[in-house]
């Protein structure tokens, strides 16, 4: 958990975008380890494949293709007013975390008991296949349509003949 949070902080602090991609990878892999510890097996492997295998490689490919120069201006400009905006924002973060920690609702315990908490799934893939193809079939089809539309949109945007001259 701490490795994930620290590397996510490094993501917004590092200058080179390739370094920030690798810190995003470290953050995602360490949180996948957290997910494996609480026995979310199927989704953790899906996260590993999608984020590490697809999204991060896509970002790396685009950065290497576009050949971006590393900009010299740092993230934090100490003379700007935006830097001083950061202190109330972080204070807001602490206060809202205090609210999250203190807003412990004992009714949730009752809900958890009624829903048979304490069950450890034997096989995640059985649960997912049984739910995804029966109750949530519309969501499944909708996500496939989203992927199809995004694929066609990315192809149309990048292979426009007017752009490439």
């Amino acid at each position, binding site marked *: 958990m701490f490795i*994930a949070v620290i590397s*996510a902080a490094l993501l917004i602090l590092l200058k080179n975008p390739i370094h920030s991609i690798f810190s995003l990878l470290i953050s995602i892999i360490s949180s996948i380890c957290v997910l494996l510890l609480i026995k979310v097996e199927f989704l953790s492997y899906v996260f590993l494949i999608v984020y590490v295998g697809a999204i991060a490689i896509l970002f790396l490919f685009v950065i290497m293709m576009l050949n971006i120069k590393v*900009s010299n201006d740092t993230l934090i400009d100490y003379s700007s007013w935006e830097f001083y905006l950061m202190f109330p924002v972080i204070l807001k973060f602490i206060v809202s975390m205090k609210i*999250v*920690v203190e807003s412990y609702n004992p009714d949730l315990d009752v809900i*958890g008991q009624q*829903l048979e908490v304490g069950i450890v*799934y034997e096989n995640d893939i059985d649960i997912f296949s049984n*739910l995804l193809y029966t109750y949530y079939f519309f969501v499944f089809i909708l*996500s496939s349509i989203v992927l199809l539309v995004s694929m066609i949109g990315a192809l149309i945007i990048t292979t426009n003949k007017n752009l490439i001259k």
Partner: protein
Amino acid sequence: MHFFGQKNINHLGEYFESEPFDEFILDNGIESISFYYSNYDCLVIDEIPIKFYLFFSFSLFFLGILGIVFNRRSIINLMLCVELMLFGASLNFIFFSIFLSLPSGQIFALIIITIAAADSAVGLGILIAAFYLKRNISFEAFASLKG
């Protein structure tokens, strides 16, 4: 709520037989209560209270917001921060689905990573098109956008 292929394990890792579901709500099985009130006063996943998990996912989400707000460099960093925000949100879904043992939360997490993949594909396509137009992808290059 009955799950397929379920196995009941108490906090010591021992298998116990549970009643059929219709009687289980009436009885509110003692093993599951002792699972959740073992050492702490609140709900736990693997004997870690839920607030640590919530702190974890919310801090990832918040670092994504911070990265978007204080970004001065390029759009690639902004899109990485959007990915981080989506990942934090899906982690929150997963933790609550484990915590309430409702598998629908994990299905929503699956949808969120679908959206994230579509998002990154279209965004990087737009980025490449903008790079062919302007030869630059900093924020100053997009200052000429109308609107």
